[in-house]
């Protein structure tokens, strides 16, 4: 995919707003986005710019970057010395138009709702970036009957990234064979193609080189970790799963990623190539430590593990230490005991939702005194949308996360497993599957 980007640097004053909205609108349109998506981009950009301008000093400037990402456009505002009220970006935030004190934040509140994602990065103590992400809308694959495949994999089959039509065919075959338990991007063949073109997702296909697709594996590069999906096989075959996994590992081995994770393994994953991430608290009815109700996530490291430091709440320390021992992982476990210190006033969560699968994953942006209330509001909102499978990803390098442990437990979450190197350090994954009364 050709990298397409528009950059703009303007003084942070309201007189510039039309230059900003005009540039964003023209750029997003030029990137091939539809009218509705362009409007959302313009509105979101306008609201963020107006808020920043209202808080800026006379000589302040903002750098704006509009970047085409295939299935999305990202509008980034880089600014200095302005504190953004991140709590209004919560999906649960409410803004009262009668409250004069909150009027200034109204724009950000709107921006958070018209965009698909709002991400805040801190470059330095003074410099921050707000990213607004607007995604394209894609037609559902509506998988229809596909021509049957031969029983045997042809002798001259190849494993390669394939072409667009083969990718779309793979997405449709995955939808047909694996039904509800697939990542949502695989429901939209066009989105898959754009994600692969934008290098958001990588794919390997097993094909006959003449258009027939027999299997695939996909993966996504995160900070230290790669999340893999599959392998998905469309015929019965003894070694195709291994071949796809081996080819993927050979391709990712030089990416610098530390580990690879398959959250929902398919039956064709070669288990000996991975490690099961055991539960932090084994169910009492098993002697193997493996839960009965669902498949364990699979994991493998891509390089030698040279150890790390994790910070844990005292109540979790024994099970965490036991878990690391079980995994042969060298970790210095620091037990952090709250000693009356207080977090900041506001809590803000990032939410990743997969509505089709009724699941959502939360992680913290900031943790404050209102954590219990904000978490409860998030749960309520997600339940109203029939999302009951809610997880929370706790970064064990972030000391502030300790404050959330009692809040999570009181809200019906329990720690499930640890994903080594899943965040800035290890991630503890909490789960609340049942609606909490």
């Amino acid at each position, binding site marked *: 995919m050709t990298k397409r980007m528009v950059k703009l640097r303007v003084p942070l004053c309201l007189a510039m707003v039309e230059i900003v909205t005009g540039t964003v609108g023209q750029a997003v349109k030029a990137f091939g986005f539809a009218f509705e998506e362009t409007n959302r981009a313009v509105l979101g950009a306008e609201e963020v710019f107006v808020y920043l301008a209202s808080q800026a000093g006379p000589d302040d400037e903002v750098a704006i970057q509009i970047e085409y990402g295939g299935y999305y456009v990202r509008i980034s505002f880089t600014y200095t010395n302005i504190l953004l009220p991140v709590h209004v970006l919560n999906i649960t935030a409410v803004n009262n138009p009668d409250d004069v004190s909150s009027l200034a934040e109204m724009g950000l509140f709107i921006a958070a709702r018209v965009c698909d994602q709002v991400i805040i990065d801190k470059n330095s103590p*003074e410099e921050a970036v707000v990213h607004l992400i607007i995604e394209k809308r894609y037609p559902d694959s509506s998988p229809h009957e596909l021509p049957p495949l031969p029983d045997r994999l042809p002798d001259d089959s190849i494993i390669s990234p394939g072409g667009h039509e083969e990718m779309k065919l793979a997405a449709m075959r995955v939808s047909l064979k694996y039904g509800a338990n697939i990542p949502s991007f695989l429901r939209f063949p066009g989105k898959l193609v754009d994600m692969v073109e934008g290098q958001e997702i990588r794919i390997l296909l097993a094909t006959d080189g003449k258009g027939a697709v027999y299997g695939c594996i996909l993966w996504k590069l995160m900070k230290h970790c790669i999340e893999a999906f599959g392998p998905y096989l469309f015929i019965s075959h003894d070694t195709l799963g291994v071949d796809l996994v081996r080819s993927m590992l050979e391709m990712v081995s030089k990416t*610098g990623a530390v580990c690879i994770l398959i959250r929902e393994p398919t039956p064709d994953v070669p288990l000996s190539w991975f490690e099961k991430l055991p539960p932090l608290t084994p169910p009492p009815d098993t002697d193997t430590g493996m839960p009965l109700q669902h498949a364990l996530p699979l994991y493998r490291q891509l390089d030698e593990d040279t*150890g790390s430091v994790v910070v844990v709440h005292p109540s979790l320390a024994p099970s965490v230490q036991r878990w690391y021992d079980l995994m042969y992982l*060298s970790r210095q476990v620091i037990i952090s005991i709250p000693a009356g210190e207080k977090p900041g006033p506001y809590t803000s969560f990032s939410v990743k939702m997969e509505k089709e699968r009724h699941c959502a994953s939360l992680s913290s942006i900031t943790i404050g005194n209102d954590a219990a209330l904000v978490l409860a509001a998030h749960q309520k909102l997600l339940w109203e949308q029939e999302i009951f499978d809610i997880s929370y990803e706790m970064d064990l390098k972030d000391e502030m996360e300790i404050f959330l442990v009692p809040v999570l437990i009181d809200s019906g979450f329990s720690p499930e497993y640890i994903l080594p190197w899943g965040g800035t350090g290890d991630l503890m994954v909490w789960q609340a599957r049942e609606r909490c009364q």
Partner: protein
Amino acid sequence: MNQTLPPLERLVPSYVQVITPYVPSKPDDVLRSAYNSPFIIRMNNNENVLGPPPAAIEAISGFDPIQASLYPSGDSYHLRHRLSELTGHSPCSFIIGNGANEVITFVIKAFCSPGDTIITADKTFAVYEWVAEFSGCESRLIPLKDNAFDADAILAARTERTKVIFICNPNNPTGTYWTYDQLCRFLDKVQGQQIVVLDEAYAEFVSNQDFPDGIRLISRYPNLVVFRTFSKMYGLAGLRIGYLAADRRITDVIRKTGVVYSVNALAQAAALGALADDGAHIRKTRELIRESRAYLQQELDRLHLSYISGEGNFAMIQVPISDTLLYRRLMQRGYMVRVMTGFRFPNYIRVTLHPTTVMEGFISSLVDCI
């Protein structure tokens, strides 16, 4: 004071921005403590378990500490002259570097502009590919054929922008090598159109008669650049010293991008000592490796474990579990092996060959861990 971060996106070349820095392993004492290991046997870096030759040890122990306050010879004058005496090439045909890694960088910087390509194998020493990438060059990685460099595929992959071809002979990690005839056939077909680097880091471990001595071929092939190191057979890995040899018209070019004074005085003295060895050290090492390899192969056969065991002081073992999990398990028992996923050999480990007494302990632990 207001410290604003410099505009890194503008300052850092795009080909550097995408590179993930190499993270070296932590020191042995830290790892031993982290893994609560009873001891640490280093089987990960292919060091010579016998250490340096006696003459090199003597040079190190006799090194006058006052020399540490003086700059060393900037171009390793005496070492180059000694290499000249041993090989018959001009002292100007040698460039000494801070380990062979440094001379790899010299060569790529000398011949490649951003956008040029280098060619090597997909499963070989990673530093060629790594240096090329942070120099803005493309690495064309040709799959191994029967675990060896594929000459025909390499020749076919050349383009106008191909400047350097890297051949690791014998190959790390598979231990395969091109014979004298195979190498000459390849060089004949290249017809001098590219620089061909022959990395002979493990050459001294090979005793087979058909193994080529690249330095002897320099007169016949002026596009040939040969790498040698003192880190492997000569046991001086901790001092970081290696060299390249080539036609002096080629070294005149490479010297333009070479860093002078990068090789310290102690390393130069130790390397001179190593070259004074009468061959006893090499014979003793080869004998140890032969016995160790025979024992390892016999045990792996007994355990029905596949392996790739060619030349060099190492072997690769295919294991039935994730190589990285096995690393952690073996570390807790004191054996530090190299995981091979990063070499594009997932579920293989590479082990440095040790005396059989050590290998027995390793095999015993391996059985416990898999």
